[in-house]
């Protein structure tokens, strides 16, 4: 399979994602430039973390208007796999490819630390390699990761199983103390209705090597790879 990682102005983890895919997972992956429209035959497009356009105004608000996003949107509408990490998640929400929005952390400050998330639904291309309710250790690093959606919307996405990962404590319980940013329902990542678009605040690309914060992120990438096997 082939991966495309989008570089927006201000993207930061684009190179890290490329490194995780190419050097660690030995995948065929390439950067996609925001001013272009060509997805270069990618089977999965990753919108990486960072501060696209400085995150001025709102996180992800400006990136969604770049030329590449027109292609990403139609790719997604055709069922193509799109993974948004951190800023990529914010962009997907702004582009209305995912429900809800991400706002300032409850603490109002940027948080960089490792969290535990529980995989809530393993019947998706992004989570199929995980065991039901498997716990993954992943880093977060964001100032605006508080997931919000209207009550109706929340009920719908919960009922349909669109919440793919949730912040939990080390024993797997979704407590307030284990919720690093105050997200509603402790939501760390959601998929769209057809489960081909997935956004999450934690960074799987920063958890692919034992020496650098463990391998919790491999489950996500391996799931996607399995979907194409």
């Amino acid at each position: 399979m082939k991966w495309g990682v989008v570089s927006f102005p201000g993207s930061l983890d684009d190179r890290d994602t490329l490194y995780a895919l190419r050097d660690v997972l030995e995948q065929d992956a390439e950067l996609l430039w925001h001013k272009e429209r060509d997805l270069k035959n990618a089977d999965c497009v990753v919108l990486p973390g960072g501060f696209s356009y400085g995150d001025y105004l709102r996180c992800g608000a400006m990136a969604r208007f770049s030329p590449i996003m027109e292609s990403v949107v139609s790719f997604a509408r055709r069922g193509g796999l799109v993974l948004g990490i951190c800023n990529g998640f914010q962009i997907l929400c702004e582009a209305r490819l995912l429900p809800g929005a991400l706002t300032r952390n409850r603490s109002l400050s940027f948080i960089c630390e490792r969290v535990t998330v529980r995989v809530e639904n393993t019947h998706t291309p992004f989570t199929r390699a995980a065991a039901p309710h498997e716990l993954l250790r992943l880093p977060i690093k964001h100032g605006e990761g508080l997931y919000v959606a209207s009550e109706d919307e929340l009920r719908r996405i919960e009922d349909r199983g669109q919440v793919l990962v949730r912040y939990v404590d080390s024993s797997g319980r979704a407590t307030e103390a284990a919720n690093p940013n105050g997200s509603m329902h402790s939501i760390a990542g959601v998929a769209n209705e057809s489960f081909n678009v997935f956004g999450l605040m934690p960074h799987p690309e920063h958890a692919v090597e034992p020496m650098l914060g463990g391998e919790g992120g491999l489950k996500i990438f391996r799931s996607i790879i399995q979907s194409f096997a």
Partner: protein
Amino acid sequence: MRVKVYITPRRGVLDPQGRAIEASLKSLGFNDVGPVRMGKYIELEVAAASPAQASAEVRRMCEQLLANTVIEDYRFEVEDA
């Protein structure tokens, strides 16, 4: 024409900044302060033939970019200067 845009968190949406400001004001001794809401304020100029045209333009700016209507409300004023 001079335009002022006000963007506020929607009712029901958490406003951690507003709450933090409220708490800080109280700790500074401003005890008579009620609910605080924190939003954005944008000033801009548009060249338009009429205030009506400017309004239509600004509404589109708000819907497309300036506000995220999932979580924010907006309103604006056009000043014919």
